[in-house]
């Protein structure tokens, strides 16, 4: 594949939207998850309920999306309820939030994620990032979590420099529960710019489930420090459809704040 008429962000947003089910309560953060949620609601999940860490419940955001819009009126438009941070994280801890969506700087084979720092010394990191935000809560409490990450070797590492938010820890059976984390939770899917991963039921190892149509599997595996399991029923992931692209570019994010500048068009 030499040129393509969609951006990496557009593909990840569509993949993410495809994983959002109708009728579920979904924890949404800034950027790609917002756009994916609007897309899912327009296409197949009109009764999905978005919740935000500042307490908005069930908004039907205005479009077009305007950069930096999150806690403001355009994103919180037509909500079912406006609460606050303690209330909404309590609801996640209570077990009524079905799905969360997160980004990551680094991720390991058990889905532990780093969004805090690179280096070994916490007091003098080589590179400092914003930190947890609400990510730790999302990966701890939501029943399922989707992690969205660019498919780059430096991001798929054997060991993350810092565990900001907990995946399946060391992969041992019951490791999350033993640590006191809610039973039956954890990373569910990893959406990348080239592929889709899940986690093996028994070993909790990241498992390649699908590859973007036209991308060789070796391209996907070559861009990872660790070797994931590979499903024997590997799926072809379809590029964004005409309808998805129309909604993203013409209606949801025409200024391309999140979907990115088109390449190869």
């Amino acid at each position: 594949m030499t040129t393509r008429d969609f951006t990496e962000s557009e593909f990840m947003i569509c993949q993410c939207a495809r994983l959002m089910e109708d009728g579920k309560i979904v924890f949404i953060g800034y950027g790609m998850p917002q756009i994916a949620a609007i897309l899912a609601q327009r296409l197949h999940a009109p009764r999905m309920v978005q919740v935000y860490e500042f307490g908005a419940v069930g908004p039907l955001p205005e479009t077009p999306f305007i950069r930096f819009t999150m806690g403001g009126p355009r994103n919180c438009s037509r909500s079912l309820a406006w609460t606050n941070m303690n209330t909404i994280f309590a609801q996640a801890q209570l077990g009524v939030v079905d799905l969360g969506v997160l980004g990551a700087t680094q991720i390991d084979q058990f889905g532990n994620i780093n969004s805090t720092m690179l280096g070994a010394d916490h007091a003098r990191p080589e590179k400092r990032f914003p930190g947890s935000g609400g990510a730790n809560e999302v990966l701890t409490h939501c029943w399922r979590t989707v992690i969205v990450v660019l498919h780059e070797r430096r991001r798929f590492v054997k060991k993350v420099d810092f565990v900001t938010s907990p995946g399946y820890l060391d992969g041992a059976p019951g490791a999350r529960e033993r640590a006191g984390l809610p039973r039956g939770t954890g990373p569910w899917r990893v959406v990348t710019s080239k592929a889709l991963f899940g986690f093996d039921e028994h070993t909790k190892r990241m498992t390649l489930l699908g590859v973007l149509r036209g991308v060789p599997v070796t391209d996907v595996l070559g861009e990872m420090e660790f070797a994931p399991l590979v499903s024997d029923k590997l799926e072809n992931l379809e590029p964004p459809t005409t309808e998805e692209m129309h909604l993203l570019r013409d209606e949801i994010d025409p200024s391309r704040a999140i979907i990115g500048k088109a390449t190869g068009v």
Partner: protein
Amino acid sequence: MDVLQAGIGEFTVEEPDALRAFMRSEKRREMVEKVMPEAEAVRRYVKDGDYVSFDFSSFTRGPASLIREIVRQRKRDLWFAAKFTLMESTLLAAGGCLRGIDVGFLGLGALIGKAVEQGRVKVTEWTNGTLALRHLAGAMGVPFLPTRSLLATDTLTYSGAKVVHDPFTGRPIALVPAVNPDVGLVHVHQCDVYGNARCFGPGVSPLETAMASKRTIISTEEIITTDDIRKEPSKTTIPYYLVDAVVYAPFGCLPGGAQGLYEMDTDHFMEYLAASSDEQRMGAYLETYAYSVASHDEFLEKRVGVARLMELKRQATIKEGYH
């Protein structure tokens, strides 16, 4: 209770009876007018070395004019609760005001990251949720609250949380210490001269922040009568006796927006983002928007202007729920 794990991050926790004694003697029960200029509020209630907290975000209903005043007064050695921060931490760090940050979300732009990498600003790790929970514990006057967040992470290791066996179920659970900020900054839509205050729309933790803080400075878009407050008490977010100062600050969230009143200034945020990765440009940014103007009024007059204000007001077409 056996402590299974203890985070090594720096934090302080208030002794509950000392806190109660403070609340008894220092929080005035009589309704007295508390309206004062921002310069006086910050001079009176923000001291070098204080722990400072604020509510909501840089984009929405944040106390931006008060943050600029802290920078303008060149406060030093502050510890800042960054429970949902995007630009506040960067402005305070660039202004040389910060000793450390409770993260939360550290903020946007390379400069604040660099300040941490070079050891100029210390960090204790938390999460947005556990920082809000620490404010709730502080607001309740209890020394800690339990949570299942943080467990099994390096975030916990570099926090001040402790893991214990929950005495009721025997399972591991994290305890986060209360925080009682020396000063809390909350921007509100409306309040009376005594500090009975209304915030509309969603938020992070306006009431918890006002309750937990030893001193609470409110900045407000509008000052209304106490009669109006009494007509619709379900709209009151914060009662007056929690409030120490009221600052009249229309457009006080700029470059962020106040829901229903004016939209955030996206162009300004692009200018800020460009400056937030470069020391010289950030210095120029602070000079322009904080040091070279004497007050929020002068900031509005000379750095924003009537045309821009009217445009941002015009853009606030969604009113539903914000009044």
